[in-house]
């Protein structure tokens, strides 16, 4: 790790601390993500091995934050202790901003203004492309949110971060510092306790992020799982067995107030009809009815986009 000079802590990823650092040899900025690795008598845990190597593969996409290398630091104090604590540093390319900061800068500050529609279209397309890439490799992100989408403002690129460490590092309800992990982008089937995750959970998040870029504020800002569901139901109507077979048998299903679906277009007033159509296909209750990332890329909303540059 002496190759890097730690500059500052830039955040708490879902799985641990993230530092901004400088590669001493090249002078390039990197993001160091520190992950604890519980070494037992078997050495490197198989799950960590499989997942980091998967991350290594996935990060070859332009729309996924590039994993530059992996550094292992042994921090065991006694040498005869077979279960040593050690840290794994994942060294990523550094990007200086994320979609949350970017949206915030358009909402408040000196010059509040909407995000340009063509930029929303471009970011959403890149997001779909990155998500399609992950899904084609069998990887679900499960925690997509604006903070996890890093931006290269000069090149207009959006890259997915905080990806893939699914099983060795299970998604916690509370983050490393016990701040509550945001529920705003969580799919209704997850909130209702479904144990079967499908790629559709990520598409729901993409839909929420799409709406947020248009509105400059979150679509469903719940502060508890229950409140989160009520936010969703109020806008999209309380789901029924008819539109979502099996919903009332999900583990955490209760009896909820019955709301009728509202007009989705009113929640995203500046979005044209094609955008609204794409959004509504991303926010379908039944996961099986939700559009796939790949199909979303062919949606008419993107017809006016020059796809050849992506």
């Amino acid at each position, binding site marked *: 790790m002496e190759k890097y000079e730690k500059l500052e802590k830039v955040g708490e990823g879902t799985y641990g601390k993230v530092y901004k650092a400088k590669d001493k040899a090249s002078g390039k900025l990197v993001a160091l993500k520190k992950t604890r690795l519980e070494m037992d008598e078997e050495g490197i845990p198989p799950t960590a091995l499989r997942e980091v*190597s998967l991350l290594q593969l996935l990060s070859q996409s332009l729309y996924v934050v590039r994993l530059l290398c992996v550094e*292992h630091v042994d921090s065991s104090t006694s040498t005869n202790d077979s279960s040593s604590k050690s840290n794994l540093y994942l060294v990523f390319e550094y990007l200086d901003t994320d979609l949350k900061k970017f949206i915030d800068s358009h909402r408040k500050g000196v010059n509040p203004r909407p995000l340009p529609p063509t930029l929303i279209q471009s970011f959403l397309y890149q997001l779909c492309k990155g998500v*399609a890439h992950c899904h084609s490799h069998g990887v679900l992100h499960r925690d997509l949110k604006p903070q996890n989408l890093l931006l290269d403002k000069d090149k207009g690129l959006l890259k997915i971060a905080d990806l893939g460490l699914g099983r060795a590092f299970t998604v916690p309800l509370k983050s490393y510092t016990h701040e509550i992990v945001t529920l705003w982008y969580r799919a209704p089937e997850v909130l209702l306790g479904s144990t079967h995750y499908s790629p559709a959970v990520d598409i729901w998040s993409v839909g929420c992020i799409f709406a947020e870029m248009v509105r400059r504020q979150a679509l469903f800002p719940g502060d508890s799982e229950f409140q989160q569901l009520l936010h969703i139901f109020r806008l999209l109507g309380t789901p029924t067995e008819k539109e979502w077979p099996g919903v009332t048998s999900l583990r955490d299903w209760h009896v909820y107030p019955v709301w009728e679906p509202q007009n989705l277009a009113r929640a995203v007033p500046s979005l044209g009809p094609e955008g609204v159509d794409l959004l509504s296909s991303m926010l379908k209750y039944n996961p099986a009815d939700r559009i796939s990332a790949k199909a979303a890329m062919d949606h008419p909303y993107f017809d006016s986009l020059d796809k050849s540059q992506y």
Partner: protein
Amino acid sequence: MEFDLENPFTSFVVEEEQQSGTILDLFVSESDHMPSQNFTTKFLEDEMEGFHVSFRQEAVSLILQAQFSCNFEPFIPYLAVTYLDRFIFRQQIQFGKPWIVKLLVVSCISLAAKMKNTHFPVSEFQREEGFMFDAQTIHRMELLILDALNWRMRSITPFSFLCFFISLFKLKDPPLTQALKDRAIDIIFKAHNEIKLIEFKPSIIAASALLLSSHELFPLQFSAFKASVSSCEYVNKEKLLKCFDTMQEMVEMEEGFDSISMSSSTRTPVSVLDYKCSSKSSVSQRTAAATAVMPLQKRETKRRKTNGFCSENRFQLSRIQQCL
């Protein structure tokens, strides 16, 4: 997050429409999973050649020994050999120290077994082979390997390309398709131990193995298959032909020898060197039988200065066949 060598990029069954992009990714990334770009130069023309060749053969032989004694599915030793190859051509090995090859082998197998979620009885295996490294040493070696390979452990292997190339053949009969694939898998396993094939990309190995398989199973369609594979935009035709020829030579040598041994059971084919090899093994009975079907004379020219290991490698090859 399971790891399937035929499908290294996915960890669950993905829908067909989502899969189309991955084959291109495979062709783009495969070189990252090869021992080295300038592999041939380093390996075959280097003055260290003898050391490299014998080191690799000793290692491969020990890996196959582990497959046999731990009853591993053949993908585990296959994966271990890919790690070994990538490691030894990235790292300066101190060839002089005989324990290095053993430590490296144990660590490569351990990593491969972890990737395949299979238990590797490290201590038992070491005891059987007459050496013992402590767990810490093996873990440190694992980390050294991971570091050298930059944690790219989802090796892209020829198996990853089989379905793609088979789809080019447009076969309609599922049992025939399966037969074609099974034979190609068989050939790929053999090819992994053949040092001359190490320079070829995984996709080229896969394409050649399928062509060779089709040549044996449906000779009438062979030229049509060859045409469709050669016209594939990702395939370098020249390399394909070169690889195909080398592979055919490898297979013919074995089969030619099989038929010889069938016709003349009274031959005494076991050389002094092979005796030495078999005596190392705990299963001498079976090894001797396997050694008997080695194409000794034909290998003579290839044996050169590193002779012993070549033949050792061969008997292990026949053994892997028995395990399949």
